[in-house]
């Protein structure tokens, strides 16, 4: 007699047993399994809302793979991408580079949880999560590989995390700790709860809508397909966090506070650029701020409250930064665009009117920067990229490794701190706080400036780009229109 699924599933997913030859602490040592170390009795209430079997998982994933391949066959060729707006393609290049190898690192994080997670249902769900992340690695690599022979910037889909480009250093600094170095408890809270529930699950919904708006059915299908996986394995997060809150609430709060800020900066760059600058203005749905307010602020704050946690202590600073941070980083990246692997768009009058409407509290401070940059293009003329490009080295935060763009143009919040005989600079108070919580973990890492000062990286910008960041003239970022905008009147 064959049992029905629901008759055997609980037995399969809850397959824990009492150890006879070793202790539980030896099977799950705290150094690997994470803290707080609790006996299994404390974890056995783990319930994942969406239970699945391996057979169901394979069937569902196979269906999703077929859908992605069908769309790829229909609209995933070079000529399909060549029809898209180059501005949007820059958003694709940015996203494609930061996504797949981070997902591959998440395979390892999930597999650690699949072995050392403290309940068998958690371990099973994490195993599915590992398989998900493997897929999320492979899909963008497959889709973008086709495009490399047309546009070398797509090569950064694979190259990015292997490079010493400043964005890659920042992304690696985050992803290595988040996905490779975290124990399963910290991984569940940092990745499954904060990153996936708080940020990326909803980001994928927003990005797929944008992709649809610009006519990029391939990218839309890819992120939708990935998002459905994320929604499933993200459920590990609240289940683990609830147990940690019950036994060590202060630690739970500290992890949430740390990881929300750690992830916010890179998220603001990747998503903020796409939503407010790299999607052609006619196709923008909502501003990054509106997206953050609706999907992250409200929902994440509600999730925290349901778990009995407070908003992070820096919440006011975080809310203020939604109005400014990604704008400042975009202006920095635009004026140092040869240091990245995608092209950037100069905001024109329509863009700036839209941004003023969406960011009334801060745009007056930001707009003069674009007035100045526009004047430089007018003076120099099209194709004179380096006349509208910075040459002086840029400062980087010792924690997040991103450019020093905290605060506002009138009041940059960067702060120098001396610790153990060495100088550090932090772009914000939360970055300084995270460092101070665990200087032994972060203190030895060198930002780009420290590498230059120590002779490990060249100080000359062109040498830095070519020999250290791994960029070449054909691949480094330029103005997406090479300064040839219809609205840009010549004198």
């Amino acid at each position: 007699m064959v049992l029905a699924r629901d008759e055997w599933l609980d037995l399969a997913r809850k397959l824990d047993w009492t150890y006879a030859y070793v202790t539980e602490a030896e099977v799950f040592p705290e150094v690997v399994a994470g803290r707080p170390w609790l006996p299994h009795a404390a974890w056995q209430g783990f319930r994942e809302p969406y239970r699945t079997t391996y057979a169901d998982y394979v069937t569902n994933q196979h269906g999703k793979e077929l859908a992605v391949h069908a769309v790829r066959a229909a609209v995933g060729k070079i000529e399909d991408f060549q029809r898209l707006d180059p501005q949007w393609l820059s958003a694709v290049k940015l996203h494609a580079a930061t996504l797949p190898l981070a997902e591959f690192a998440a395979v390892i994080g999930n597999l650690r949880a699949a072995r050392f997670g403290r309940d068998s249902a958690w371990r099973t769900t994490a195993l599915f999560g590992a398989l998900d992340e493997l897929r999320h690695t492979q899909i963008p690599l497959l889709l973008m590989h086709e495009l490399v022979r047309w546009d070398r910037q797509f090569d950064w889909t694979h190259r990015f995390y292997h490079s010493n480009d400043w964005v890659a250093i920042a992304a690696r600094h985050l992803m290595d700790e988040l996905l490779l170095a975290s124990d399963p408890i910290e991984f569940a809270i940092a990745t499954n709860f904060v990153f996936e529930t708080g940020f990326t699950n909803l980001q994928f919904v927003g990005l797929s809508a944008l992709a649809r708006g610009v006519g990029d059915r391939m990218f839309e299908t890819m992120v939708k397909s990935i998002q459905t996986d994320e929604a499933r394995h993200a459920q590990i997060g609240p289940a683990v966090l609830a147990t940690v809150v019950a036994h060590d609430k202060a630690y739970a709060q500290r992890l949430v506070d740390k990881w929300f800020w750690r992830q916010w900066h890179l998220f603001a760059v990747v998503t903020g650029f796409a939503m407010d600058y790299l999607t052609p203005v006619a196709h923008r749905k909502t501003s990054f701020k509106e997206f953050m307010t609706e999907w992250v602020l409200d929902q994440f704050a509600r999730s925290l409250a349901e778990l009995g946690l407070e908003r992070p202590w820096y919440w006011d600073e975080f809310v203020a930064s939604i109005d400014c941070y990604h704008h400042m980083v975009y202006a920095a990246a635009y004026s140092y665009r040869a240091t990245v692997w995608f092209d950037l768009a100069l905001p024109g009058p329509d863009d700036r009117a839209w941004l003023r409407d969406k960011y009334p509290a801060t745009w007056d401070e930001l707009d003069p920067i674009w007035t100045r940059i526009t004047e430089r293009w007018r003076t120099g003329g099209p194709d004179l990229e380096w006349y509208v490009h910075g040459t002086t080295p840029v400062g980087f935060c010792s924690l997040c490794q991103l450019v020093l763009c905290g605060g506002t143009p009138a009041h940059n919040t960067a702060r120098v701190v001396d610790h153990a005989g060495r100088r550090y600079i932090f772009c914000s108070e939360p970055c300084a706080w995270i460092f101070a919580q665990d200087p032994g973990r972060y203190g030895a890492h060198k930002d780009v400036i420290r590498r230059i000062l120590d002779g490990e990286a060249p100080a000359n910008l062109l040498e830095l780009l070519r020999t250290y960041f791994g960029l070449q003239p054909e691949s480094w970022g330029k103005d997406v229109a090479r300064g040839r905008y219809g609205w840009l009147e010549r004198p």
Partner: protein
Amino acid sequence: MIPLYGFVAGDALGVVVLMQDHETVADLALRLQHAAAVRVAPRPRVSVVAHGVTLDRDATIKGAGLVALDRVDVVPEAP
């Protein structure tokens, strides 16, 4: 050479400039304004502030007490 983090009021980011001991605070202001010129038009009259104190523009970098990786701010002077 003394590397300094510089922030020009109105700019989007901080930059790093290398100064010699004997160069002046006025030289520093000039170099930072030049570094930010792509984004912020240079102003005719500016002050340099470090550790909350406005520096004497004729003082040398060393004389002003600046050391490696200090933060300095270039702010417009009131008209």
